[in-house]
């Protein structure tokens, strides 16, 4: 709720916020004046808490002495308004999205270096989309599949992170085990069959290259003879079970940890939490 309110803050609140950003240095900035002359200052102030104290003081003063010009606690001539001069209008709307500028911007630098960097930047933008690090969101299926879409897909090379450098929990356990056995298998098969039937294996490898990890090992399994296949599958099922068991255990373990953590609250967490809430509120 708080976030919502802040987002759709009324323009008047906007100007209050302007003031707040100025609170460090001065309090005689123009927005403060606007505020001073705003007819419904009290209402405005009530809608926004955490106002700097000086504003509240000003409001109190205004309340005491009644509204109008006489309310200023200082000599307005000191800031450049003559007696009887019209004061600037109250601004009740946010500044325009595309404000007029008094001065046109200077043209951009041009030159060989600039051109090259521009080309590099645009090329880089295309390249990163083809890198394996670019994770696309699984898109929802369209009703009609566009023919061209099939050809627009880019095949990215696979990326296997160096697990030694990453925390253990990063490792997808199942995948890792399979990946280990797979690489061995690939070696074996390629060595065995390379003499007899090169072309076939090559095709296979090419196919495999295009597919995901999981499918690969399935393919490998199909290649094996019946008995072996059964053995393998059995093995893998066991493996999977074991992994699942492990994950489950871990989860339980962590849950326990979580509980203990929250039970022995050292007060730090509370601070962090309230921070979070504050953060959210400002959006």
């Amino acid at each position, binding site marked *: 709720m708080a976030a919502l309110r802040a987002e759709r803050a009324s323009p008047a609140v906007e100007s209050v916020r302007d003031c707040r950003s*100025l609170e460090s240095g001065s309090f005689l900035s123009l927005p403060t004046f606007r505020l001073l002359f705003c007819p419904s200052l009290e209402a405005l102030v009530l809608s926004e808490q955490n106002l700097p104290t000086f504003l509240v003081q000003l409001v109190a003063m205004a309340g005491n002495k009644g509204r109008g010009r006489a309310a200023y606690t200082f000599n307005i001539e000191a800031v*450049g308004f003559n007696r009887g001069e019209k004061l600037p209008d109250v601004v009740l709307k946010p500044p325009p999205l595309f404000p007029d500028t008094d001065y046109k911007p200077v043209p951009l630098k041009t030159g060989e270096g600039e051109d090259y960097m*521009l080309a590099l930047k645009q090329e880089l933008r295309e390249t990163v989309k083809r*890198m394996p690090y670019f994770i696309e969101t699984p898109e929802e299926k369209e009703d009609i599949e566009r023919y061209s879409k099939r050809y627009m897909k880019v095949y990215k090379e696979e990326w296997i992170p160096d697990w030694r450098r*990453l925390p253990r929990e990063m490792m997808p356990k199942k995948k890792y085990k399979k990946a280990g056995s797979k690489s061995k298998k690939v070696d074996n098969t390629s060595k065995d069959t390379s003499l007899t039937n090169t072309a076939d294996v090559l095709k296979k490898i090419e196919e495999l290259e295009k597919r995901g990890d999981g499918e690969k090992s399935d393919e490998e399994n199909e290649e094996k003879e019946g008995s072996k296949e059964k053995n393998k599958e059995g093995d893998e099922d066991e493996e999977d079970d074991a992994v699942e068991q492990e994950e489950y255990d871990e989860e339980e373990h962590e849950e326990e940890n979580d509980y203990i953590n929250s039970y022995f609250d050292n007060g730090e967490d509370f601070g962090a939490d309230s921070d979070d809430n504050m953060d959210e509120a400002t959006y």
Partner: protein
Amino acid sequence: MTQAEIKLCSLLLQEHFGEIVEKIGVHLIRTGSQPIRVIVHDTRTSLDQVKKALCVLIQHNLVIYQVHRRGMVEYEAQCSRVLRMLRYPRYIYTAKTLYNDTGELIVEELLLNGKMTMSALVKKVADRLTETMEDGKTMDYAEVSCTFVRLADTHFVQRCPLVHATENSDPGPPPPAPTLVINEKDMFLVPKLSLIGKGKRRRSSEDDATGEPKAKRPKHTTDNKEPIPDDGIYWQANLDRFHQHFRDQAIVSAVANRMDQTSSEIVRTMLRMSEVTTPSSAPFTQPLSSNEIFRSLPVGYNISKQVLDQYLTLLADDPLEFVGKSGDSGGGMYIINLHKALGSLATASLESVVQERFGSRCARIFRLVLQKKHLEQKQVEDFAMIPAKEAKDMLYKMLSENFISLQVTNNVIIINQQSWTRVRETPEEIPKTPDHAPSRTFYLYTVNILSAARMLLHRCYKSIANLIERRQFETKENKRLLEKSQRVEAIIASMQATGAEAAQLQEIEEMITAPERQQLETLKHNVNKLDASEIQVDETIFLLESYIESTMKRQ
């Protein structure tokens, strides 16, 4: 972390790594360090995707992890490192100017992949270079690794922290995360590798028809399975070193603009000499004697020792104090005041921003306040010789935009009439009344360069975010047209390859109508302009950031 910075980080992450990584990254930037389970819960993303995203972010040095007590691993985003992604084109271009195409590709690959082993990097770069060469020519691995060694020697690339090797005899469960150690000594030590071979061309499918290259490829892939000689030693681009280079270049060109080419060459020589001896964050370079400088001047630069001494004296006398004299031994010892130089550069850009935004009269007031430190409103009007009403208007405009700040004080200040600066403030001068009664209060206008620079930096972040959003909007608006032109280009290319007649080609080219072509031109022009602005705003960002960083270190 301000909202503008977070917004910019979000846009950058999204452009580089896609939406999922962006979601996780921004969440981490907002919340600080968090364990994986909390990330999964808070972002409502599947565990698998969070893991993948974190892997990507860690690979690119954008996220670091830390083991907490109780064995929890917490992940923390490096926000300022994320913002560095803006500068990638500049890093790459710098590498090109210093180390040619090979250097360019090495840095580009390192930035694209975050970190890489030397062997993988050399192979990749050699392959890419070979592809751009004429048929029959190939790039030698040895040549690429030679450039790599030079980059490491000049510290433009550095090793990533190594995984601390744990003894196998260590009982108990393995730690939840590896500990990474930085070995200061070996940071730039290149492993001894005998990389022999040549870059390989990626064959298109037609080439494979002969069958011969086909047989080679699988061999190549099995080669990769062999133990890599420099396994586990990863390299990354040393961005600080690049920044040092940018800073030096800025100083050199500033001197060239202020004085002349020769003096800038002298400053360049001094900076080059102290590149290795001075840490990048030091406020001064090591003192250099004029004899040393004379010996190190680039060959072919014919100036006598006397002229050099004259130039050095001139530089040291300059009020901007880029060069300072630290002693008289050895024909005069000279230093370069890096901190002052950055300050002058930042002030100059502030001045020019004021000039371009508010006009030259405002700039006059701004410079006046800058020069006199503290001024009352009446004094501003008098000194600037601008009619009071206009001067007030300008002053308030700059005040409300936070270029100028207002100091409210009711301390009694003894003012030295000549310099208008505060000379003395004793305890007796503290007012008896703590209120801000107007009659006893002074309103002094000042320029706080640091806070003005911060404000401007913040605006720069905002404008880059706006530029990116505008670019994305322009591209999205014309998506269909862009796709069409891509398709047509692809068809033309394939037809040219098969040797189609000119008439046919023209027919296909006409599939894009004249107005469409015009629209494409406009789009391209706009996108180019937006992209160029991004790069150039980043230059200002660099300057302001360096200034703020160096000022914060001194305090």
